[in-house]
Each structure stands twice: as structure tokens, then as C-alpha cells.
């Protein structure tokens, strides 16, 4: 059913009791053209573009829990494309362009809001870093502007720019912003389902059927399912699945935390991030302040994160925004993120033929949900990595051609 003003009016007459479900919950079939492991945003987007653009409609998405219950539903929803290197600019900008038409494309309001995004500079080193990155971003044809401290103050009057680490300036991407994370998962799921993709929840992949180095299907908690091609998009659990398939992934899984305050009237109309004092902040449409914390400094699959990390975020937050000290924080949570040494993702073929991995998005992959799904779908369909995805091959950890986004990705998500 198409969502529009007429369907809304029609359903109002029946007191909204007759809306059809947004997607089916089918039993798994014995065989598919392609199986996607992981029903987060990236997995669902992959399935959607496989069906929509690659003509591969016999697709199942297998999710061990519920749709979007992983990092997709746990992130602070920041979208931007102001990365340093050409390879990153290509994939993240590809994604921002898809975001710009996504609500129309999916007929689902993903609440993409290009409210602008500031990277604060507090030190001479920060100024040099945003200077270098800002110019590199320009050269890639992506918008970025330098602001001096007065312009920053004008944009965010509530910010204390004279704290212990005074604000000296900022890098602004006006096309950056936020989106509604759950809506992204739901929107992709609904459209993929409409084109025949089977979305199967509560179905964990426990093994791979590999014959003579070629994947033939997967073992799941709901039985064996055959497939010609398998794409694994399992975020924090990617290395666990790689190990089952018999190879290693250069990933470390750590908890990353976030928290939200009680809702207040609109007071912050942009996204603010600071690598130096290690905090980032935006305001949701409900009015909650959404605050991103850091990750624990050790591997962990305990989906909560250490208390000291929260303590560590509150200091700089209150220093930058003194009014926050009188707000109550309502919820805190953690997600297990899969981090690579160069802070860039892995989209790659693997030692097993027809088995593809899309992982390593770590602390910052939400923004690339459309872009990653799009190029990964084409890679799976063609059997060769899409040109935008190719540099993110796992081979780079052996050739040394890393894509080092440490500065652009470290705290800023």
C-alpha cells in the first residue's frame, strides 16, 4: 500500500484499525538466489537494491533478533560525508546523495534533516586538521566551510566557547545532519518485502555450507537454507561469522555508548561534534538531547559499556553546554561496533567464493546505510566489487593500502 494523504484519510475512517502490515513474516524457503545475513540497515538496504536495481528478487534477509535491533537502532543518527581521503569521499558522498532522495524513493519518511554539522576546533592542531580535511573535501566537490568563533557563537548561542579548551573555529558541512534510524530500517524492509524479499527474524546463522571453497548455503537456528550467494552484514559479530567460515577479519569489537536527556524545547538546531574534548550532541525531533559517548578501550560483546565512559563524556558536555547540568538523562545504552585499524569499512570478497562481507563500519556506518547497501548489492549481483567498494577490500591489510580516516572518524560519528 502506498503511504500518502489519501491512504491516511481512508484509514482514518476506520480508526486506523485496517492498516496492512508493513512486511510479511514468511517461513524460510529451502533456497534463494542470495542470502543476506544481518537485518540491520546495511543488510536491508542491500536486499532492497538487489531487488530494485539488480533484478535479484529471490532474496532472504536472516536476522538473529529483530529488525534494526543492532547498531542501526542504537546509533546517534549523524549523517555527513566530510571525510579526508578520496575513497571515503566517494562512498560517503554517494550515500548522502541517496539520502537526499530516500524518503521519496522508499515512500517512507526517514526524517532526513540536513541541519548542518559542526566539527569544533579547540587547539592549533585541531585547526590544522580541519584545514587540511576541509580543503581535501573541497577538492572532492563536497561542501565544507570554515567558521571563526564568532560565526560558531552565532549558530549555537547556547555553547560556552570560553571553556577550559576554548573553541577557536569549526568546520561546517551544511548538507550533513540526522535521520530517523528506525525509519531507515523499516522503510527499506517494507519496500524490499514489497518486491518479494523474505525478511526472516529470529533466525541466527550458525554455520556455512562450504563445498570446495564455494559457499552453497547457511545453517541457521531454523534449519539449512541454500543460496547461490551469501552476503554477511553483521556489524559487531562479523569476525565471529568469519571464524565460522574459516578465515580472519581484521576487526575488534567494542561497546560504544550513547544517551538521551529528557525532552526540552528546541534549543540546538544543528549537530555539534568535538574530537578534542570528546563529545557530540544533537537534538531529536522529540526534543531529547542525543549525546554520543566513547567506546570502551577493550574488546567486549557485553552490550552495555563501562560506567567510566559515561562519566568521561559528562565533563566536556557540561563544560560546552552548561545548561545540560540541570537536565535529567533518561536512557543510556551500548552497541557492539566492529572497528578496523584504519577506521574504514571492509566491503570485500573473501577466501570463500560467492561469500561477501560488508563490515568494519565501526562507530560511523549509519550515514552510509544507503551507499553501502547500494554498492554492496551491485557487487553481489555482478560477482565483482563495485568500483566505489573496491578500495575497501580486505586485501588492503596485506598490501598496506590503508584508508586512514582516524582523524575524520575517531570521535565524530
Amino acid at each position, binding site marked *: 500500500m502506498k503511504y500518502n494523504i489519501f491512504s491516511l484519510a481512508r484509514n482514518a475512517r476506520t480508526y486506523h484499525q485496517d492498516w496492512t502490515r508493513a512486511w510479511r513474516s514468511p517461513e524460510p524457503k529451502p533456497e534463494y538466489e542470495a542470502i543476506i545475513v544481518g537485518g540491520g540497515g546495511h543488510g536491508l538496504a542491500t536486499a532492497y537494491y538487489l531487488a530494485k536495481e539488480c533484478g535479484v528478487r529471490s532474496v532472504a534477509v536472516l536476522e538473529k533478533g529483530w529488525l534494526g535491533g543492532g547498531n542501526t537502532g542504537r546509533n546517534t543518527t549523524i549523517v555527513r560525508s566530510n571525510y579526508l581521503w578520496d575513497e571515503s569521499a566517494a562512498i560517503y558522498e554517494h550515500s548522502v546523495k541517496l539520502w537526499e532522495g530516500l524518503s521519496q524513493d522508499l515512500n517512507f519518511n526517514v526524517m532526513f534533516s540536513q541541519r548542518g554539522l559542526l566539527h569544533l576546533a579547540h587547539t592549533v592542531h585541531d585547526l590544522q586538521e580541519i584545514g587540511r580535511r576541509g580543503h581535501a573535501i573541497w577538492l572532492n566537490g563536497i561542501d565544507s566551510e570554515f567558521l571563526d568563533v564568532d560565526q560558531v557563537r552565532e549558530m549555537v548561542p547556547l555553547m560556552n566557547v570560553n571553556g577550559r579548551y576554548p573553541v577557536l573555529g569549526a568546520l561546517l558541512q551544511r548538507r550533513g545532519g540526522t535521520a530517523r534510524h528506525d525509519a531507515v530500517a523499516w522503510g527499506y524492509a517494507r519496500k524490499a518485502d514489497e518486491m518479494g524479499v523474505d525478511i526472516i527474524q529470529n533466525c541466527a546463522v550458525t554455520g556455512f555450507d562450504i563445498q570446495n571453497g564455494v559457499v552453497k548455503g547457511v545453517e541457521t537456528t531454523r534449519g539449512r537454507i541454500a543460496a547461490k550467494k551469501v552476503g554477511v552484514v553483521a556489524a559487531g*559479530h562479523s569476525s565471529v561469522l568469519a571464524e565460522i567460515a574459516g578465515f580472519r577479519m581484521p576487526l575488534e569489537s567494542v561497546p560504544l555508548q550513547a544517551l538521551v536527556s529528557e525532552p526540552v524545547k528546541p534549543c540546538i538546531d544543528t549537530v555539534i561534534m568535538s574530537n578534542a574534548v570528546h563529545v557530540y550532541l544533537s537534538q531529536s525531533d522529540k526534543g531529547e538531547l542525543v549525546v554520543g559517548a566513547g567506546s570502551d578501550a577493550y574488546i567486549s560483546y*557485553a552490550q552495555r559499556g*563501562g*560506567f*567510566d565512559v559515561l562519566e568521561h563524556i559528562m565533563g566536556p558536555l557540561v563544560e560546552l553546554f552548561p545548561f545540560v547540568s540541570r537536565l535529567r538523562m533518561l536512557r543510556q545504552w551500548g552497541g557492539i561496533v566492529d572497528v578496523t585499524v584504519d577506521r574504514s569499512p571492509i566491503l570485500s570478497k573473501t577466501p570463500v567464493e560467492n561469500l561477501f562481507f560488508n563490515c568494519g563500519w565501526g562507530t560511523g556506518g549509519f550515514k552510509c546505510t544507503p551507499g553501502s547497501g547500494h554498492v554492496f548489492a551491485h557487487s553481489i549481483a555482478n560477482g565483482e566489487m563495485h568500483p566505489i567498494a573496491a578500495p575497501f577490500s580486505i586485501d588492503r*591489510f*596485506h*598490501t*598496506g593500502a590503508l584508508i586512514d580516516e582516524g582523524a575524520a572518524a575517531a570521535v565524530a560519528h
Partner: protein
Amino acid sequence: MLQITCPWCGPRDAVEFHCHGEAHIARPEKPHEISDAEWGDYIFFRKNPKGVHFERWTHDAGCRRWFNAIRNTVTDAFIATYAPTDPIPEIPTDDQGDA
């Protein structure tokens, strides 16, 4: 994981410590003789188990010494800590550690 037992100082607040990743990795004896693949494995590939993990820690805000730890990455519970020169302790397979 609120306290960690330093082999030298005993149980102390977890924030005094810092983790330095996987333990017991030996630098290749003859770096010039190994392949790019082996060198990449040594530098970039780390174990990332969901379960028991051997890792290196320092007691930064205490004695500042290095030690090794065995920790369960599902519960964050420590199973054992030991000095770098100690043999790797035997752990019973059902030991989940103290949270």
C-alpha cells in the same frame, strides 16, 4: 568490571588500568623473510573472540607495570591476571570469572 586485580598491587579501581589488546603475540624472528600476507597478519589481524580472551594491561594510575589478563568478553569478567613472565595459567573450561 569495577575492580581489576593487579598482580603486584591487588584489587584496584578499573579506571586505573588500560588495556593494550591481545597478549602473547611474538614479533616475527626474521621480518625480511616473511611474505606481505604474514606481515599484514602480524600487524593488523587480532583475535576478536566472543568468550575467553588473553590480553595485555597496564596499571597506569598505580604501579605502572604491565601484566597479562584472561577475560571473558561476553561478561567482561576477569578469570585471571598474571605477570608477563609467568606461565599462562590453566583455566577450568567452565570458569566464567568474577564479574
